[in-house]
Structure formats: structure tokens, C-alpha cells
């Protein structure tokens, strides 16, 4: 019964939190309204989103978010230095094809978004069978290191979240 009423507890919880963020005040009425949204929206949209991936370890999401935020700050400074202090001819951009172990569309979307949001790399395109992702790197002397970073920092953690 409980699993039928709340098929996706994480999604429901996220919706309740987003509702509180939108109204910006904590009252009992908002808790009831937010819970109603949190229960109704997953049920109403279930038909349009089949095969939702199960999330194995929810706490890993927080770890992943913190690591990505930290990397964004570090990479921002690095890219700012490249833009400000390197001559245009010295900037060596690279295409880096990254083989993927992730299989679910949602997990690949998260990885592609992460690659784009960390400055210095932009995910440009997937291969037709979703087995590799094409990354454009603004400046690097060692493309293999960028590839290694993406595989070990981001993809390994996403594999734990989306088994």
C-alpha cells in the first residue's frame, strides 16, 4: 500500500523541498500543500516517464553534489587564468572521446550536465549507441588526464548512485 501511494519517495521529498523553497516560509499549511504536490505529481507523471532508474544510495548524491560544486570553483579559477593570461595561439583545445560505462539515460544526462557545468570542458555529443560521449576541452596539455578525471571523479560515483 505504502509503495503504491509513494512510488518514488526521493522524488516526492525533492518536490516538497522545492515547494518550500518556492514559498520561502515554513507553515503547516505549506507542509500539507507541499506534501499533496509531492504525492500527486509522481503519480500523475508516472505514465510519461517509464523505466525510472532506481537510486541505490541517496546519500551519495550529496557527496557528488559537494564534489561537483568544489570542482566548479577550482575549475572557474583555472579557466579565468587561461583566458586572462594565455595568448590566443597558446590555447590548445582538444576533443576527448570518453567511453561510458553508465547505461541509463538519466545517469548519462547527469554526467553530461556535470561535464558542461565544470568550466573548461563542454560535453558536445553522444555516440549513436550512447556508448561514448564527445567532450571539448578548452585547454589541456594532457588529454588523458582529463579523461581519467571524468572517469574516476564523476562516472565512478554516478555508477554507485545509478547501479
Amino acid at each position, binding site marked *: 500500500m505504502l509503495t503504491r501511494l509513494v512510488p518514488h519517495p526521493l522524488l516526492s521529498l525533492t518536490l516538497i523541498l*522545492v515547494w*518550500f*523553497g*518556492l514559498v*520561502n516560509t515554513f507553515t503547516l499549511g505549506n507542509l500539507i500543500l507541499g506534501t499533496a504536490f509531492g504525492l500527486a505529481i509522481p503519480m500523475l507523471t508516472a505514465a510519461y516517464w517509464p*523505466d525510472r532508474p532506481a537510486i541505490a544510495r541517496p546519500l551519495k548524491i550529496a557527496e557528488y553534489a559537494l564534489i561537483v560544486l568544489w570542482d*566548479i*570553483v577550482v575549475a*572557474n579559477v583555472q*579557466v*579565468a587564468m587561461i*583566458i*586572462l593570461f594565455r595568448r*590566443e595561439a597558446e*590555447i590548445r*583545445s582538444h*576533443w*576527448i*572521446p*570518453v*567511453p561510458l560505462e553508465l*547505461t*541509463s*539515460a538519466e545517469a548519462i544526462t547527469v554526467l*553530461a*550536465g556535470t561535464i*558542461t*557545468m565544470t*568550466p*573548461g570542458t*563542454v*560535453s*558536445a*555529443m*553522444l*555516440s*549513436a*549507441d*550512447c*556508448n*561514448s560521449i*564527445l567532450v*571539448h576541452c*578548452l585547454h589541456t596539455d594532457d588529454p588523458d588526464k582529463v579523461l581519467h578525471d571524468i572517469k574516476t571523479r564523476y562516472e565512478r560515483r554516478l555508477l554507485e548512485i545509478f547501479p
Partner: protein
Amino acid sequence: MNFVAEFLVSAALIVSGIFGFVGSYGLLKLKHTLQRLHAPTKATTLGVGGVLIASMIFFYADTGHISVHELLITLFLFLTAPITANFIAKTHLARNLRRNELPESTGDFGWSVYDDPPETRLDT
């Protein structure tokens, strides 16, 4: 509002201003479309992030309540900005580059702009 809060708000605004400026300068300086794409992804992260942190500190010092609208703005930016960047990158690839200018994909199928997907989709 006390001095510490004012100082923190000013510092966050200056940091965001610097990164916003560097992002715009990069847009001018870099020559290729895909290199230029890196500049605005910076402006949306630390540039906007600094303004949002300043806003949270300001409203906390001013009213005493923690405002969480800024966290939602960050969330929505992180959800939408990569999609725009991907649209621009893909359009550029489809219009201006040929497949032999890109490295090979590591799988059996080529990049999705040039190659058709397999008959049965793998993830359904």
C-alpha cells in the same frame, strides 16, 4: 546591517563581477565557437553564484530569515544551462564540422549527429 555582513556582501559581489567580466572577455578573445562556449558556462557558475550568495547574506542580515530562493535559482540554472550549451555545440558540429575532423567514438557506432542509432534502442 553590521559591518561584517556588508563586507561579505561586497566581497561576494566583487568576486561575481570579476568572473562575469572574465567570461565576457573570453567571449571576445577566443576565436572558435566551441572555445567561446566555455566562457558563458563560467559566467553562469561563479558569476551568478556570487550574486546569489550576496543576496542570501543580505536578506539574512536584513530580515533575520534565511532565504532559500537563491538555492532554487542555482538548482534551475544547473538544470538548464548545460542544455543550452549542448544545443549550441551540436548545431555548430552539424553545420560547420565534418566527421573526419572529430576523433572516432570508442564504440561501434559513430557520433549521433552523423550516424543513425542502432535499430533497437539499448536503454529501453
